[in-house]
């Protein structure tokens, strides 16, 4: 279709959809309303299981299967990205150029790195008590490691980032979460049931299996994001194009844009 034809088709359909959606919005309960039956039940159940963070209780206890699926999506995406961004035949590996970083940035980065790591681990560990959890903390940990890339250079990053170890960690996190469920299914009441002692409300050790699952997710997310960033950085920094450069749409070699 021509650009104009495509746009016209889209605008016509969008108009119909916008009208219908606007009318439907008028039937929605008013914004900020009081009626949240599922939410109230979830809060009640979270408090019964002595989980101060109700969101963590919903994620890792009441609807733990959703979180297993979500973690698996991350695992699958990392696996898929690693496979898709593999180095193909004809591509060469080049040594990255050392970068010049100003001393101030270097000092700041190196000072912040342990702080950020600690914050990330804190967020993971306290997921059942304060806002946070495995996903949020895992991302903080993973990106904290890359402060070394920003503050120093790529080779320093490579030294603290043996990718195969992180792939192992990624798989181990996925395995641990699933295995917890399988164990509780085989030996206990149900799949992903909360069978550990519930501890004291608002303490670090509370809410039973939420802590365990949080840790598994935290490891999986941190390692997964590191691997993901590693594959992208690899493409950007290390892998050079095949001799002759990339080909344009009709097959002729193309000039690299300057």
């Amino acid at each position, binding site marked *: 279709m021509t*650009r104009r034809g*495509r*746009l016209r088709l*889209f605008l016509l359909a*969008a108009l119909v*959809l916008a009208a219908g959606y*606007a009318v439907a*919005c*008028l039937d*929605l*309960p*008013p*914004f*900020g*309303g*009081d009626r*949240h039956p*599922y*939410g109230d039940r*979830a*809060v009640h159940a*979270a*408090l019964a299981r002595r989980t*101060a*963070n*109700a*969101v963590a*209780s*919903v*994620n890792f206890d009441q*609807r733990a299967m*959703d*979180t297993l*699926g*979500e*973690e698996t*999506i*991350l695992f699958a*995406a*990392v696996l*898929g*990205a690693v496979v*898709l*961004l593999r180095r193909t035949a004809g591509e060469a590996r080049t040594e990255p150029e050392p970068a010049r970083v100003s001393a101030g940035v270097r000092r700041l980065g190196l000072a912040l790195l342990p702080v950020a790591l600690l914050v990330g681990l804190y967020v993971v560990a306290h997921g059942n*008590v*304060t*806002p946070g*959890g495995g*996903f949020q903390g895992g991302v903080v940990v993973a990106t904290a490691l890359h402060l070394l890339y920003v503050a120093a250079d790529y080779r320093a990053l490579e030294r603290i980032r043996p990718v195969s170890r992180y792939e192992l960690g990624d798989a181990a996190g996925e395995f641990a979460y699933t295995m917890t469920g399988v164990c509780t299914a085989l030996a206990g009441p149900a799949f992903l049931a909360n069978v550990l002692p519930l501890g004291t*409300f*608002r303490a670090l050790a509370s809410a039973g299996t939420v802590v365990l699952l949080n840790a598994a997710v935290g490891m999986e997310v941190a390692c997964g994001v590191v691997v*993901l960033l590693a594959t*992208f950085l690899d*493409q950007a920094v290390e892998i050079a*194009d095949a001799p002759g450069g*990339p*080909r*344009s*749409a009709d097959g002729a070699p*193309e000039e690299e844009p300057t």
Partner: protein
Amino acid sequence: MSVLPYLVAGWIFLVGLYGLVTSRDLIHAVGCLAVTQSSTYVLLLAVGYRRGGTAPVFADAPAGARVVDPVVQALTLTDIVVGATVTALLLALVVQLRKRHGTVDPDRLSELRG
């Protein structure tokens, strides 16, 4: 206006779709897909809001406090992870597409027709 947040969610969805339809660059297109997805965050969180409610975390709030809906927050968290990972995978595809085709302009990609 008490339906404004919901209308905003619908607007974001349509704007993202518009970006996808008129895109000239596949990286821009993947970004528009992310915009489309953020409309779901807005809708979910707007649905779960309770006026005067605080975050559903009882670390410092008393046990009977008025809180917003924790379920939609959990759904949104799941949604964000899903979105980030799908974006990553699609960007990986775009990277390889640039290398094979030499372009990221969808108008110039013509290999799959008919």
